Structures are given as C-alpha cells and as structure tokens.
C-alpha cells in the first residue's frame, strides 16, 4: 500500500528534477521557514549523491528573527548549497522603493520588488517556492508550474491547463515560472516529514519563553522592528511559531510543545489555520493574498 507521505515525496522530487532538466537557470527560495526547509531537503534527496544543481535564494527584509538567520547560514553550509541573498534594505538604498513607515509598518509587501529585481539580475527562469495549497484560498487555485509575465504578475484567470504529471514551462524571454513542488502537502505532512527524516528547524518552531505583546488578538514578539504601542503591555509567555516570515507580520502562538511529537499532537487538533493564527498580512482584505500574488509576490 502506498503511504500518503511517500507519494507526496515522490511527486515533489519528480517536479524538482523536471525543473532542473528543463529550465536554464532555476533557483529555490529559502527563508529558513519550515516549508522551505522541507523543500530544500527534498531537493537534496532528488539529486543525491550529486549536489543540488541550482542555488537557493533568500529575500531578506532585514526584519528577521536572529535564530532564523543563524539557522539559514548553518543549513546552507551543512547541505552544501550556494546561497544568494536579495536584500530589501539594498533595494531601498538603491531607490527602488521607499521603506514602509508609520507605527505598524511592515516590509512584507516590499519583498516583491526585491524578489523580481533579483530574478532579473540573476536571469532566473524558474523559481521554486514552498507554498502549499492548504495555506490559503488563492494558493489553493495555483498550478504547480505557475506562469509569470514580463512584469512578474500572476493572472489567475488565464492559468494554463496542467494535466497528469506533464508540465509546460514554455515562456518568452523575460517571463518566468514559479514552481511549487510541495503544493499538495498540508501543515501536518510537513511535520510528519520533519519527524520521519529528523529535519533540523529553527528553534523558534518549538516552545520557548519570549517577550510578547497582544495586538489584533495575536502575540507579537518584541524586537528592534516591532515595539508595543501605547496601551500594549509586554509580558513573557511560553510560545512557539507556526510559521516564520518577516518579524513584523508573523505572530507566535501559546504553546508548550517542545518536541516534534508534541508539535504534531498540537497541530493535529488545531482549530485555527496556520495563517489565520499567525499572519497579520492576510487579515488585510478578503483577497489579500490573491492581490499580492497578482503583483508578483511569492
């Protein structure tokens, strides 16, 4: 009998190899978040004992959890892959855009400019992303091979048909594809893989004590980029992160899960989705993600 996790791995590995075979210059987005970590480990397994035949790229907002950057550098060294960093700060310094300002400023949307500039600079024609369809309703609609026009835009109304396991990556110069090899994985599948394959993750995925304050019904971590406003009080709580993104828009959840097994137990009874529990950026509007994706976001 086919195990569900094994058939997900087979599908993802096949997609990663297909892209390596068909595109001139692929790159894999790597943020240090659990999905991109799992995706990178799948890439390592897809080409073993060869090295992964493409670089990984981190779009760095400069607003990071310190543990994650340390983890990122340690991981690319351990897995022997080349790291490219696209810096939002550098894009701001170069006048490509203005920094987000105001008390609740987040650089999350600014990443799109840096991402598209980096894709152009390195002439990447395929960029792997670790998005999962179970995360969000616009992502639930996206193809594995997702075409981007010369402006990096996604058009949900003209997606190409995608049948069987045959993918069509044909594109004009200047266009590119986003590739989502773990489209069909759920949050629980990710954790099952982490458990079965003993995958190292940033420590903030496990319960720890941290200074936080309450905002929009979520626990936000105190950091140099994230300070409480008037009336928001700081306390130390036992928390962990379910997703890891830009520190200004990723919230922690109350949790005492310190081991993978405890996290799996917690995830299997969760009553709130991962993004619903942790992402300030998705609360903007009914179609926040769709709108950002149309402009070229991850």
């Amino acid at each position, binding site marked *: *009998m*086919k*195990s*569900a996790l*094994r*058939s997900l*791995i*087979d*599908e993802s*590995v*096949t997609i990663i*190899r*297909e892209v*390596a*075979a068909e595109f001139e210059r692929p790159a894999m987005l790597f943020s240090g978040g659990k999905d991109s970590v799992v995706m990178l480990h*799948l890439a390592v*397994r*897809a*080409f*073993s*004992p*060869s*090295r992964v035949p493409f670089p990984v790229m981190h779009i760095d907002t400069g607003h990071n959890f310190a543990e994650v950057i340390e983890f990122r550098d340690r991981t690319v060294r351990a897995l022997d892959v080349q790291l490219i960093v696209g810096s939002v700060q550098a894009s701001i310094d170069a006048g490509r855009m203005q920094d987000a300002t105001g008390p609740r400023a987040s650089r999350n949307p600014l990443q799109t400019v840096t991402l598209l500039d980096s894709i152009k600079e390195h002439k990447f024609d395929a960029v792997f992303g670790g998005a999962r*369809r*179970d995360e*969000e*309703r*616009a992502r*639930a*609609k996206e*193809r594995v091979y997702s075409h981007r026009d010369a402006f990096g835009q996604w058009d*949900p*109304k003209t*997606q*190409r*048909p*995608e*049948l*069987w*396991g*045959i993918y*069509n990556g*044909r*594109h*004009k110069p200047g266009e590119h594809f986003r590739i989502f090899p773990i*489209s*069909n994985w*759920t949050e629980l599948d990710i954790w099952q893989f982490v458990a079965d394959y003993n995958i190292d993750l940033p420590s903030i995925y496990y319960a720890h004590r941290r200074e936080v304050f309450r905002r929009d019904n979520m626990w936000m971590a105190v950091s140099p980029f994230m300070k409480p406003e008037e009336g928001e009080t700081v306390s130390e709580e036992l928390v962990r992160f379910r997703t890891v993104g830009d520190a200004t828009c990723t919230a922690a959840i109350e949790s005492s899960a310190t081991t993978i097994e405890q996290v799996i137990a917690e995830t299997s009874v*969760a*009553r*709130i*989705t991962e993004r*619903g*529990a942790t992402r300030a950026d998705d609360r903007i509007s*009914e*179609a926040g993600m*769709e709108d950002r994706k149309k402009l070229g976001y991850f």
Partner: protein
Amino acid sequence: MERLHFATVGSVDDGKSTLIGRLLYDSKSIFEDQLEHIEAVSKRRGDDYVDLSLLTDGLRAEREQGITIDVAYRYFATPKRSFIIADCPGHIQYTRNMITGASNADLAIVLVDARTGVVEQTRRHSLLVSLLGVPHLVICVNKMDLVDYDVDVFNKIRDEFESFASRLDLRDVTFLPISALAGDNVVSRSANMPWFEGSTLLHHLENVYTASDDNRIDTRFPVQYVIRPQRADTPDYRGYAGRVAGGVLRVGDDIMVLPSGLTSTITGIDSPDGPMTQAEPGQAVTILLADDLSITRGDMLCRPNNRPRASQELEAMLCWMDDAAPLQLDKIYTVKHTTKLARGKVSNVLYRLDISNLHRETEIKELKFNEIGRVTLHTTSPLFFDDYHQNRTTGSFILVDESSGQTAAAGMLLSPRS
C-alpha cells in the same frame, strides 16, 4: 495511510463546491477562522445561510460571479484515508480547468441537479471523465431537498444517465441521492430518504477499492534526469532518475533501453529514502545499471520481452483546450510525452465527437475550443507509448503551441483501429 484523489464535476450550479464545503464541514475538517470568514462574507452579501461553496471559491472573480472558475484543491483526512479534492468548475468556458482537476483523479463525483436531470454539461464531463480513464465514478443526484426527496426523481435520473453512459467506457459507477445543502447522505445517512439503502458519500470514499488501479505488469521507466556526481567520493556513480510509470523494477532485473535497444541489468535502486530492492508505480527513484550505456533524458527503460509500442505515426483522442487558436492540420506543435519532447503535426481528424449523442462526425478539418476528436499525429521522432487505457502515463501527451506557449491540447494515445 492510503490517499484517494477525487474530483467533483458536473454542470454549473449543480452544487459541486457546496458539496465539498459540506463534506469538509460535516467531517469537522474546517478550521474556525475559515468558518468565521465564510460566515462573515455570507452575512455581508445578505445570504440566508452560510454559503459553503465559499470555502473553495476563493478568487475575487469567482465570488463576484458566484461560480467556480478554476480548480481548487482541498485536503482532509479521516482515520481510514487521506483525501485530495479537486473542486472543478462546471461552466463550459472553463472545461480545460475541469480537465486539469480530473486528469489525476482516482474517482470522480458527477453532480446532477435533481430538478433538471442530465444536461449537456453532465454529458460532456462524463465523457471527459471516461476518456481520462478515471477508474471510479459516483453520480450524486443533488438538491433532493428541492424535489421532496422523491425516489421516482432519483430513479428517473439514474435511468437517464445509464442509457447515456452505456456508450461510455465506465467501469465502476455508483448512484447516490443527496442534498449538499442540507447534508443528506453526505456524511450521515438521510432520515428524509429511508428508501435509499446504499452507503453515504463519505463511507463510499473511504472504502472504494483502488489497489488494483495501477499497472504493475508492464515495466516502464521514462528517464528524467541523469545523476552523475562530479565528486571525489563517488567517482563512478551514474544513475538514471525518474518516476516509475508502470510495472515493478527489481534489483537483478534485465532491462532494455529504448530507443537504443541495448540491454543491461539493474544493480541498484536509490530513492529519497535510500537504497531499495524494488520500485513500484509512482515512485521516484534512481536506477543503477551494470553497464555503462549512453542513456539520456527522454529514453525509456523496459523489460526486453515487454516493450511499449514505438511509432512516429499515432492515433489519439484529442481535447482541444486553446481558446485563442483552433487545431490546424499540418501545423507543427511541440509534443510533450513522458519526459520526451518531440515536434509533431496532426495530419487528419478521423472524427469529432458530438457531445450530446456521442455521434462521430466525419469530414472535419479542425478542432475548436472544447471539441474532442480522434486524430492521426505524426512526430519527428518515435514515441514509446502504451494505449492510454493500459497506462495513463505512457499513454498521455500534451500539444504546446510553439508561438504562444499555450498548452493547446491534451491527448490520449490509442491503438489504431483495425
């Protein structure tokens, strides 16, 4: 745990998205924030009840128009099985998105509105599901609440469907009377239809027998990628990576490489889990051989005494999916078949299928958007293939328009008619 991939199909507004919403809701697979979100949207629009179709109809344009435009994928699990759902659009304009969602399905749920019965789109989708070789079918006669849960309505639609479907190649068909809106026979048995003795939809999905659906006989391994590490610690490693398209490969097996016809023996099988002794259909592995042969992407490994067909002149059923340009005879398209790229042209449309009565129309010179026909295809190099009914991987291909880049057609290879 085993995984079942199913798709919901059928005409526009017959209740596909609502059914998925109901299935997720009643099996407690909806998260609180998702429910709060669709409750808020329903309320804002002034609906009388929570519109469960909003769970999958997530795009702006879909919510504006109240229809599904593109396939949405959803995931849930019960203690028995895990499921991938593809909620397909019913509108004819988005048929290619429906094909996208159904092409990989193990099972299709065809929804029929109890008030209207079998309509043209029901027939079109059933035909496509049959051509795509989806092994299991469930016909859900939906909106039974609007016909007083009348057994006669159900029986009449079943007869109607059966008389149409007798001309299709459908192997396993089950009929269910349901109400997606009210939940009858979706997860729990309906008190409104005591006359129905079959199982609920969820029970059926959990128990449908799929183990014999894979082709485990005819060994087919399209080579996808050659792994040849340039590293000091593995100087002689040369592996052929790919996904098993059929049969079982074992260490020690004799194999033949196509097109060269050279033979060798499997000395090792590597996988994402490390070395294995055998590889099954669907598994992504790397094959190691005893001899140093010249093998590249697009080649195929098989058993010397069980080879696929090889030809440059093929017959196929073609579903035309490009809304910008119809099929032109003798125009050159890119053919993508397994891991192989070729170029090809259609020299002849043998017939086009009239969807409403399955009549074969001849003397046809083109296929337009959403039309289905049997064609002769010539390729620049031989394809190694099986009849689609024997193997959904080696029997399928797509045509790509070389100027627009569009995926213009989906093709299913068939044995030439004698």
